[in-house]
Every structure is written in structure tokens, then in C-alpha cells.
């Protein structure tokens, strides 16, 4: 009888790694790959779909699985702020560089309008996530709703999922020309809530086998309806849920696992910075090789993350921390952090 314990018991070569980390790393690499290949035989989409599902999965795992319902809105808003602040910094920097301004983009609602954004960032994704988080915070600020959810998280998430999936189909823009398409949260909320559903279905101690079967079936059916059987998004989303359901931890060669972990850790920074590095590659360096662009954007973003993370860690170890620096840390070089010191709101801590 295999025990869950086995999967991380010692005595085998390689390293055990959580599957969602691997998926996160592959998904962000796929996103950058897609964006670095403007000339392509077909659309490589799928990375963002998986990332959105994983965002919901992580939210459920780290925030919604709490038992103190009164904390939920605060926790969700704090998470939304952590996503919003670095994005805002990039949006403002983009305005400054382009010497242009867009109110909808500044207010983080440009996903409701067709057209291109000014930011050197695919800003619709954080906009959708932040808007969804705000909706969730609003729902959970109603005590009865929060209580109901905490009492039956799986059932509640399933109901919400079915509602938002129907809404998604209702607001489908399959027949709208690309230039006129918008990405309001209701269109893809199901993708995000699916992540929450995956977490609660797999965490539920009741009928785990049937939960897995039902979850995979539901995912395949919904993904087929939303994307069509021939789309890459259908396959990536379905396979991701299958992997999460049946192989929550994977044993990989040490170096490969380390690579996935580093890329997985840096995924948000890579998402924030890869467009900037793609611009540097094509406009700044004048290079055209698409695979080179992918490698350059990945390595550049990773290096930036590595430097910022190391700086922040050293800073915290030596001095202290506060929530503002924490929020900005993924995108700011360490030396800039010093100037934020007068703004610190948290208490001084020594480690």
C-alpha cells in the first residue's frame, strides 16, 4: 500500500518537488515563449491559462483554507496589493518612457476596453486577477457568505465554479474580431475558480478517488467547451489538472528540480519583466532570433529576480523589513529600497 509519506521518503536519487511548482515554471516559460515568437505557425497559448488556474489554486491553499473567516477579506486584499503594487510601478514607468498616459490603465481597468495597453507588460492578466480578488474580498466581507463557504468549501466552490463557467460562456467573444475583444473578469473567472476547485477537491478527505475522477472529468468537459478540443489551451489545462490530481509530487533529477524551483519562484517577476527584456532584445540590441529572444527574456528576468531577492534577503537579515518594501521587492533593485525607509510602516525587527 503506497503511503503519501513515501513520496518524500529518502533513499532514492533525485529530489521531490511539488507538481504545481513544475507546472508554474513550465507555464511561465510557455508564456514568454509565446510572446517571444510573434511570427509563428500557430498560437502557442496555454501558459497563461495554466497560470490563472494555479493562481486560484494558490489562493485557495494559502488564503481560503483558513478557518478564521473574519480574516479572509484582509488576507485577500493584502494579496491583491502585492500583485497590484509592482504592476503599478511598471505601468507608471511605461507612461514616463512613452510620455503617454491612459487613465483606464492607471486605474487597472483597461481590460474592460479593447485596444493596446501602454505598459511594457501584459497588464490584463494582473488586472483580471486583482479584480477577481476584489470581488472575492467583497463576497467574504458578508459574514454569512464567509461562514457558508468555510463550512462547505468544496461544495461552495463547485457552485461558484458552475455559475462563473456559465457566465463565461455567456460572455464568450469567440465570434468577436481580435481588435475588438476585451477581457473582463467574468469571461475567464472560471479558469481562476477552477484552481480553487482543484485545491478543495484534492484536499477533501472524503472519497478522494471519486473527487479526482470527477474533477478531471469536469475540467476536460469545461476546457473542451471553452477552448475546443483542438486548442493547445484545452490540452495544457486538462493535463495540468490530471498531473495535480494524480501526481501531486514528482521526483526529478536534482538539477532539473532545482531549475524548476528557481523558475517557479521567479514566475511573477518573469511575468512582470519579460516584455521589457524582449523590447531590449529586439529594439535595444536589434536582434531578431526568436529563440534567442526567449532565452534572453527568461535569463534577464531570472537574473533581475535573483538580484532583487538576494538583496531583499540580505537586507532583511541585516536590518528589518516592512510590507511596502516587501510588495515592491520583486521589481526593485536593492539599492532603491533604502530610499523607502522613511515610509516604513512596519516595526523594526532584527533577525
Amino acid at each position: 500500500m503506497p503511503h503519501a509519506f513515501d513520496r518524500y521518503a529518502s533513499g532514492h536519487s533525485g529530489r521531490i518537488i511539488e507538481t504545481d511548482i513544475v507546472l508554474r515554471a513550465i507555464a511561465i516559460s510557455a508564456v514568454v515563449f509565446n510572446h517571444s515568437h510573434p511570427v509563428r505557425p500557430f498560437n502557442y497559448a496555454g501558459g497563461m491559462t495554466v497560470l490563472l488556474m494555479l493562481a486560484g489554486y494558490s489562493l485557495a491553499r494559502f488564503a481560503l483554507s483558513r478557518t478564521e473567516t473574519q480574516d479572509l477579506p484582509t488576507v485577500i486584499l493584502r494579496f491583491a496589493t502585492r500583485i497590484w503594487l509592482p504592476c503599478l510601478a511598471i505601468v507608471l514607468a511605461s507612461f514616463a518612457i512613452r510620455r503617454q498616459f491612459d487613465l483606464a490603465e492607471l486605474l487597472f481597468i483597461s481590460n474592460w476596453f479593447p485596444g493596446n495597453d501602454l505598459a511594457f507588460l501584459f497588464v490584463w492578466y494582473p488586472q483580471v486577477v486583482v479584480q477577481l480578488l476584489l470581488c472575492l474580498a467583497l463576497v467574504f466581507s458578508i459574514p454569512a457568505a464567509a461562514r457558508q463557504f468555510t463550512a462547505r468549501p468544496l461544495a461552495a466552490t463547485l457552485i461558484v465554479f458552475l455559475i462563473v463557467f456559465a457566465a463565461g460562456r455567456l460572455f464568450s467573444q469567440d465570434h468577436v474580431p481580435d481588435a475588438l475583444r476585451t477581457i473582463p473578469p467574468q469571461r475567464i473567472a472560471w479558469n481562476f475558480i477552477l484552481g480553487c476547485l482543484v485545491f478543495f477537491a484534492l484536499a477533501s478527505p472524503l472519497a478522494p478517488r471519486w473527487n479526482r475522477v470527477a474533477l478531471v472529468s469536469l475540467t476536460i468537459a469545461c476546457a473542451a467547451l471553452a477552448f475546443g478540443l483542438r486548442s493547445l489551451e484545452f490540452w495544457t489545462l486538462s493535463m495540468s489538472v490530471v498531473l495535480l490530481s494524480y501526481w501531486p509530487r514528482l521526483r526529478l533529477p536534482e538539477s532539473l528540480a532545482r531549475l524548476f524551483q528557481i523558475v517557479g519562484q521567479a514566475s511573477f517577476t518573469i511575468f512582470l519583466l519579460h516584455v521589457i527584456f524582449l523590447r531590449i532584445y529586439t529594439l535595444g540590441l536589434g536582434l531578431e532570433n526568436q529563440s534567442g529572444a526567449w532565452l534572453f527574456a527568461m535569463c534577464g528576468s531570472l537574473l533581475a529576480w535573483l538580484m532583487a531577492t538576494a538583496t531583499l534577503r540580505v537586507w532583511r537579515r541585516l536590518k528589518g523589513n516592512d510590507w511596502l518594501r516587501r510588495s515592491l521587492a520583486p521589481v526593485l533593485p536593492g539599492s532603491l529600497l533604502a530610499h523607502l525607509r522613511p515610509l516604513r510602516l512596519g516595526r523594526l525587527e532584527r533577525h
Partner: protein
Amino acid sequence: MESPDPRAQEDASEDQRPNARFCSDLSRFDDQPALIEDGQTITYRRLADLQQCWSERLGARRSLVFLEARNHTSAIAAYLGCLKGGHVVHLFGEDERDKLAERVELFRPNVVLSFNAGRLEEDHPHRVTHALHPQLQVLLSTSGSTGAPKLVKLSDRNISSNALSIAEYLQLAAGERAVTSLRFNYSYGMSVVNSHIATGGTLVLTERSAAEAAFWTLLRAHAGTSFAGVPYVYERLRLAGFSWADAPSLRYATQAGGRLPPDMVRHFADLGERHGWRFYVMYGQTEASPRMAYLPPEMAAAHPDCIGIPIPGGQIALIDETGRDIEAPDVAGELVYRGPNVMMGYAVGPADLGTDCSAGQLRTGDVACRNADGLFCIVGRTARFVKPFGIRINLDQIEHLLAPELPGIVCAGDDRRIVIALPANGHDAPVDSAALTTRLAEHHGLPDFVFEIVRLREIPRLSTGKVDYRAVMEAAGSASQRSADFPGLMSGTFLREIGREMARIVGFQESQWSGVEQIYATLVGQGATGASTFTDLNGDSLVYVETHMALEEYLGSVPPRWEQMSVDELEEMRSHAARI
């Protein structure tokens, strides 16, 4: 409190060569299975032959034997052969091999039996004749001597009486089958081997960990009747949702090797009741061969915080600071154990192998109290013992060790750090703090960062003139805070540190995490307490991979649902892992 000693008639013989009574006549169990390894059964008759072979092979002259204690037939037979032949055997583990050369050089054993490609090989490094005490039989290293070659001396009487006591309170008989879940160089593991051999029980030999499914498959296949585990293993089995219904032959489970939290004791006592096995919480130290107390299973649910009552033949007393016995209930005092299983003392070199320093009692360093039901509960430790990473350190010993070269030195500490305070006026010559730290760390088998060297203008003292150790710790805190002044953002130190940190993140350099609290503070950016969990600290998906990696580096492996485990729970796992 004293229990009658059923082994009174078995007092130490006057013979000049010991012969551990519990295994002196194995053939009396005839064709009962003694050992099962890889599907092969060794009967007691056959084991007696193997024991005799080993006894003769080691020679007529009493020798000092170092034996690598693996759960293999050859190692068990060699161990029993040593006991039968009256040789003194030091059991060492596979993980102690790196310290073996130093230990061999110091103790100069006549024979070293170690495994090479799965076979037990014999080496005769020294031909010296040791002055061995007539009763000395076994040498074990303690958790406190991981880095220093300091061994616990156990006599024939110590191990035999303890084996029989254990067999008595666990009600062991010939039908018992234990699957080896612990190494037998670890005193708990040795006691499982001894008590089963003493009663004609069967040992199913495996090197598998109880964390592996294969271990439980083996237990089921051989209808194992017992399971022995340390708290870490029980915690992980609980976390992994192990199904105890899959071990239907289990008759009892024992827990020792550290404190299992009361809720876990209740949990396992309840599980045992539901699945038809008894759960024994036990207390001991290697110095007591090792068992001193056990909690009767029927009392576990009502008194999960207690270590219970003394084992048969043992006696537990509590003493106050003046050394007087405490009789009143619920008054804390140092736990002192008296019994035939108390060691003969420590050996730090070959000269100690000829002496018996046992006063018949063991001051455990644990502070306990006796409740109204007569059960003992551990409530703390005497101040001068600390247990960073589960390794027992005597702070007085460090002071004594360093005093000749650093007069006036004071050592204070807790379970997280050990502070070496140097009086500023006592040392004109500069002290190489880094070298001193490394030396202490190596000596005690602890990481460097546990030790903190500080120079104080004056050593704080109480009005009685005694050193105020609490004030030393506080002064050390502020001194190190001053010395750790922020180096300046563009300074070379800061940039070098960033470079090092980058190398650590990508795995080119080993990370140096000092604790789960530090990991959370550095990565999540929140000050944690012992009860904090990652989710409590508002950890989220933006930092969880980093935190997971750091915990993996610090703990070795990260259990599922780690984000909902408290700092204390994670630290406890690490300290138990270190002890195992």
C-alpha cells in the same frame, strides 16, 4: 517511588568476565524463529551457533570491539557473540563512520567490524591489551557526544536488567515479532533487540524506515506485533494519514527518544484503543541503558503529558537545589533515577574503560514533578543543560573546556544558541572568534551559528556573586546587535553578501538557515513565534516556493501541508531527525 526488582537474584556476578545473562543461553528457545531477514529465518538454535562462532572468532583474550550496528543478521550475531565472549563492544552507526577514524585512534580497539559491500568485515587495528573493567560490556555514544568521542559505559547488569524490565512491563513473550524500525547503535533500538532476544521473540530485520511503505508491507507480511518509533516518526505518520488498520497484527506500539506532544499521545492512545493495540509512552536516556519510566497505556489518554512510573526495578526521585528529596506532589525538582541499569560512567579515553564511576544513580538534568496520581511529568531541564538541535550540551562543561585558555569565560545558552561571553578586561590578546566557533561546533557536532562569541565589558553577576546567566544572554543580545550594524548599502560587505546569497539561491553554496523563524522572517517578512504557521504569517503564492526550498534545505524534506504546521512543529521534526 520504587518498584520491586524481580531480578534481585541476578546481581552482578563476581566472575571476571561478564556474560550478558539475557543472551547467555539462546539455545533454550530451540527452533523458535529469532531473526528473519530477506525471507530467511534464523532459529534461536542457529543464532546460538552463530553467536558461538563470533565469540570464538574474536578470541579467548577479552577484546575491545567496534561494531557497525546495522540491522543485519551478521551484525546481530556479532553483537551477541561479543556479549557471550565477554568482549567490550562499541556499537556505532553508519552515520558515525566519519568520526570512526578519530575514535579508533583514541580508543585503540582490537577489532573493528564494519560493513563493506553488504558484508561484515573484520579489521585488527591495534594489538594492545586494554585494562577493561570486569563488568563492562557495551559502549554507546550519546546524543551529547556526537562530535566528541565520549562513550557511555554499560555493564552486563545494566543491559540485562533493563532488557528484562522492558520485557516485563511490555509483557513480552516468545510469540512477539518486532520489525526493526531503529538502528541498534541507538540505545532505544538496542533495547528492542535485547528485550526480544531475552524473551525468545523474533526480530524481522530491515534497514527500511518506518516512513516507507515497504516497512509496513514487511510488518504485515511477517505479522509484526510491535512498532517502536520516535516522536518524529509518529508525527509524520499522523501527517501522512497512515492507516493503522493496515497493521492488524500489531499488539503494541512504543514511543521514546523525545517528548511527543500531549495531543499526539492522546491521538495514538485513542488509535490504539480503536485498532486493538496498546500505546506506550516511554522515557529514558542512553545513560540508563536506556529505559527509566513508562506510561501505562490505560493512563495515556488521561495523562498524556506524563512519562509515567519507573520501570520494574527502578526508582525515581526528585531532588531540590540542595539535593534533598522532594516528596510533595506537584513540586518540581531534578529527576534522579536509581536502578541496576544506571551506567558505569563515561569513557573519554581508553583509561576510562577500566573504571566504574557509577554511583547507582543518574541525575538526568530533566526537571519533573510528581502528580497526585503518582505519575511523573517532565516540566523542563536544569538550566545548565541545553539541547540545540536535540543534542544535549552541558554549559558547565564548555566553560571548563575553555577556561584554561580563556580565563573568566562564561557560557550561557538556550535551545537555540549558546553564548560564550569573554570579559573584556580578562584578555589582552585578541581571540579568533571564527576559529573558536568552528572548534566548538565541530566538538559538539552542531552548526557554527549556534555559537555566539561576545566580549562583555563586565560579566554580570547576581548579588550573591554568582554569574547572572540571564543577564549574560541579554547582554550578548545587545552586544551582537551592535556588532551587526548595517554595513551600508553600497559597501563591499553588503555587495559581497548579496553575491553569496545569490549563490545560495541557485544552489552553488549551502544555505545557512538557523531556524524556521529565521526563514519566515527573511522570506515571508514577518516575525514568527513558535505557534505561527506560514499561512498565519500571510505567506502567499509569491513567496511559497522560496520558503518551501528554504525549509527543504533546513529540514531535509518538507512534509505535505507544511504551510499549516507551526514553527515549533517543524523545528521538532528537525531535532528528532537530528537525534535519529
